[in-house]
C-alpha cells in the first residue's frame, strides 16, 4: 500500500507527514506526530474524545483520514493555551473541577471552544446540546456546563 504525502498546518505550524490511505487523522496525530491529547474512546464518532477543529469546523479526528488534512488547518488541544497562559476554558475547567479522570477533557475543551466561537453567549440548553457529542462518564456534566458558562462570561468581558 502506497503512503500518501501530506502537507498541512497543525496548531499554526507547517507539518508534513506520510500516512497510509486508510489511516485516520487521529492515528496520525497520536502515533506519527506524538500529539496524544486527542483520545480514542470509540473510533466511531460516538464519544467526541478525539475532537479537533479542521478549517473552523469541529470534527472527530477518528472520522477523518490523515490524507484529507492536505492543505488544511488543524487545531488540537495542544494548541489551545498560549505558551504558559491557559485559555479561559482551560482555567475554568480547573477552577470548577469540571474533570475527574480527565480523558474526555481535551475533547470537551475543543468542542466548547468551537461552541463559544459560534455562540459567545449560549444558554444552558444550548451548551448541553452543543456538547452532546462529547461523552463524560465521571462528572454528570454539571460542573462542565458551569465551567463553560463561567468561561463564556469571562470571554465576553475580555
Amino acid at each position: 500500500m502506497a503512503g500518501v504525502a501530506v502537507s498541512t498546518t497543525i496548531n499554526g505550524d507547517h507539518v508534513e507527514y506520510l500516512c497510509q490511505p486508510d489511516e485516520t487523522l487521529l492515528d496520525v496525530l497520536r502515533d506519527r506526530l506524538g500529539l496524544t491529547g486527542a483520545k480514542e474512546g470509540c473510533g466511531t464518532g460516538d464519544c467526541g474524545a478525539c475532537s479537533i477543529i479542521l478549517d473552523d469546523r469541529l470534527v472527530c479526528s477518528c472520522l477523518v483520514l490523515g490524507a484529507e488534512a492536505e492543505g488544511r488547518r488543524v487545531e488540537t488541544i495542544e494548541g489551545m493555551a498560549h505558551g504558559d497562559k491557559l485559555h479561559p476554558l482551560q482555567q475554568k475547567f480547573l477552577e470548577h473541577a469540571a474533570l475527574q479522570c480527565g480523558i474526555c477533557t481535551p475533547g470537551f475543551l475543543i468542542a466548547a471552544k468551537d461552541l463559544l466561537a459560534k455562540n459567545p453567549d449560549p444558554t444552558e440548553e444550548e451548551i448541553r446540546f452543543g456538547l452532546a457529542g462529547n461523552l463524560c462518564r465521571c462528572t454528570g456534566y454539571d460542573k462542565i456546563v458551569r465551567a463553560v458558562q463561567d468561561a463564556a462570561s469571562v470571554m465576553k468581558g475580555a
Partner: protein
Amino acid sequence: MNFDPRFSGRKFTSVGTRPIRPDGVDKVTGRARYGADFNMAGQLVGRVLRSPHAHAKIRKIDTSKAEKLPGVKAVITAADLPDLTDGDAAMYDVLDNCMARGKALYDGHAVAAVAAVDARTARQALKLIEVDYELLPHVTDVDEAMKHSAPLINDAIFTEGLEEKPVKPSNVTKRSQFGHGDVHQGFGHADFIVERSFKTEQTHQGYIEPHACVASVSSDGTADLWVCTQGHFVYRQHCAQLLGMEASKLRVTSSEIGGGFGGKTHVWAEPVALALSRKAGRPVKLVMTRDEVFRASGPTSATSVDVRIGARKDGTITAAEATLRYSCGPYAGSWAEIGAMTAFACYRLDNVKTVGYEVLVNRPKTAAYRAPSAPMAAFAVESAVDELAKEVGMDPVEFRIRNAAQEGTRSSYGPVYGPIGIGPTLEAAKSHPHMKAPLGKNQGRGMACGFWFNFGGQTCTDLNIGMDGSVSLAVGTVDVGGSRASLSLVAAEELGIAYEQVKAIVADTSSLGYNDMTDGSRGTFSSSMATISAARNAIKILRERAAQMWDISVDDVVWENGHAIAKGEKHGNLGRLSLKEIAVASGKTGGPIAGHSELVADGAGVSFATHICDIEVDPETGATRVLRYTVVQDAGKAVHPTYVEGQYQGGAAQGIGWALNEEYIYGKDGRLQNPGFLDYRIPVCSDLPMIDTQILEIPNPNHPYGVRGVGETSIVPPLAAIANAVSNAAGVRMTHIPMSPPRILAAIEAKRAG
C-alpha cells in the same frame, strides 16, 4: 507503629477547602499520559482474536498461517499461558478469562493473540488464525440459566451453601443467606404486605478510556508494564502469578486512568501483552477497541429479585424478605451475596432474611461496578418500600424515617452500626425545597435511599521533605478522580503547611510497598489515613532535628502550624523553626527527612444517601425527561468538597443512565447486539439537568479527620428513585430496568387496556 486513627475533632485549615488539583494543568492541556499515550522503542502492536460464539468447544487452533505472515513476531494461545495458579480457583478463572482454555464461554472471549509490526499486519494475522469450534447450547438470561433444563456452563459446579450437597451440577455456584429474627412471625404481625418481582439488565461501567497497556519483558526475566488500572500492585500480583514471575521483577506503572468505576480492578489483556512480549522479545502495546471493551470487559450482573415487606398500620415494618439472583458471567462470583447484604441495610428491622444465588451465564465475567450489586437490590427494595408506604397511607419520606436504621441498630447483614447518616439524609431530604416544588402534567417525583459499606485495606505511603522544605507525597492508591488533591490537603493539614507546598504522585510498584487497589471508596479514606500517619512520623523527625538545632530535649519541642516550637520557661528566648528552616539544615542534622507509613486502614465508615428526582413521561411515546435531581449524602468529612460533589453527581448520572436506557442486548445467537456507544446509550449532556448536591458530615469515629468513603454510594439510590418517579408520573409500577421508552409505553398501554 503507634498510630492513633481515632477521630480527633480538630479544626481544619486546609481540609475542606477547594484548591486546583495538582494534575489539573496536564489534563487540560493534553499532556497527561493515559494508558494508550505511552510508547516504547521497537514496540509491536498486540491484537486479540475473540470468539464470535457464546458457548463453544475449541477443538483446535491453527496459527501457522498467521505466524508465516511477514511482520508477525508472536502468536499466542492458551498454550503459551500455562496454568500456574496452583489450585487458586479465582486466579484460574482470571487466567481462563484472559485466554480461553478449551472452551469459549461468551461472545468476545479471547482465544488467541498476535504481536506484529503494525496494526494492519496484526489485523491481517488475526484473520489467518483458524479456530475449529464445536458450538454448544448457550444461555444468557439469569432466570433461564437457573432452570434444570438450562445448558450447563461448567459441569464441575455444584451449588455451595446448600444444607445438602447437590448430586447434580448446575449453573448456580452458591447460595448465601443473611438476616435475623423470624420473618414468618413478622409477616404475621403485618397489616399490609407488598410482594413484587423485579428485573435489571446488565450494564457496563462505560469508562471512556479503553483498556490499554505496554508490556516489555526482558530476556533476564525482568519486566515493565505501563497500564491504566485501578490497582497496579494488584495487577502486578496477578500478572506475576499468571506468568510465573517474581513480583519484584515486574515493575508496574499506573498511567493516568480514564475512568474505571470497578472495571479496571482485575487483569484482562495485561498477561496477554506480557506473554506476547516474552515470546517476541520486544515491547508490545495492546489497546482494546470499544467493541472489545463492551464484549469482553467488565459488565455488572443482570438480576432478578423478589421482595416481600410487611408493615403495621402505624408504618412500622414488621418483616422484610428478598431473594436475589445475580448473573456472574461464566465464572463463580459473590455478587448476589453482596446484594443480599446491602438490600435492607438502610432499615431497622426485627425480622429480615435475604437469600442470594450466584448464577453462571454465557456473558462476560462480571466485574465490580461502583457499589457493586447494591443498586439492583436497592431498586427492588426501595420500589417495594414506596408501594408499602402508599398502602399504609404514609408519605414515603416519613415512612422511611420511621424505619431508618440508627446508631446501635443491628444491620440486616450482621454488624451493629456506629454513628450513621441514613436518618440525617432523610431529614435533609424531607426539608429540601425540592420536595415541595410543584409538579406539572405527566410529571412525577420519586425518592430512594442507598447504602454502601466502604472499604479500607492495605496502604503504604511515603512523605519526603525536600531540602527546600517542599513536600512530595508518594501514594500507592491510583487517583481516579482527584485524590492527589485531597491527599495533598491532608498532608498540608497535618504538617501545618500550605497546600501548594505539597506535590502528590502515584508511585510505581517498585517504589512503594503494597497497596490494595482504588476500590470500595477507599482511595481517600485509606491513603489519607496513611498520609496522616506518614506526616506524624515526619513530624517526629522534624521535632528531633529542631531539638538538635536548639540543643534541647525533643520532649520540649512541639509541632504547631508548620513550626517547631520550644516549650517551657527555660526556652523562652528560642524563636520558632519552620519546616523549611529545619529542612534546609537537614544535611547537617542527620540527613533526609521523611515519614513512612504502612498500615491496614480499618474502620471504614458505612455510607448512606437519599436521592430525590422529578421525571416527565410522554404518555404517547414512553419518552422520559429528568427534570430535577438532588443528592443528599453523608461524607463523614469532605476533604475537597468540590470533588465530593463530583462523586455525588457522577454516581447519580451513571444511575440515571442505568435506570433509563443502558443495557446489554443479546441476540438469540448469544451475541452482543450493541457493543458501542451508539447503541449502548450512556447519558449525554443534553439528557441531564444540573444535579444538586448536599453534603452531610457525620464524622467516622475511626478516622482522624472523620473521613468516610464517598465514591460509590451515589449510584445506589438512582435506579429506585427514578423508578418511583416514573411510576408516579406514568401511573403504573415499573419493575424492569432499564425503563426504556418501549418498556414504559408497553406498561402504559397494558394499563389502559386494563
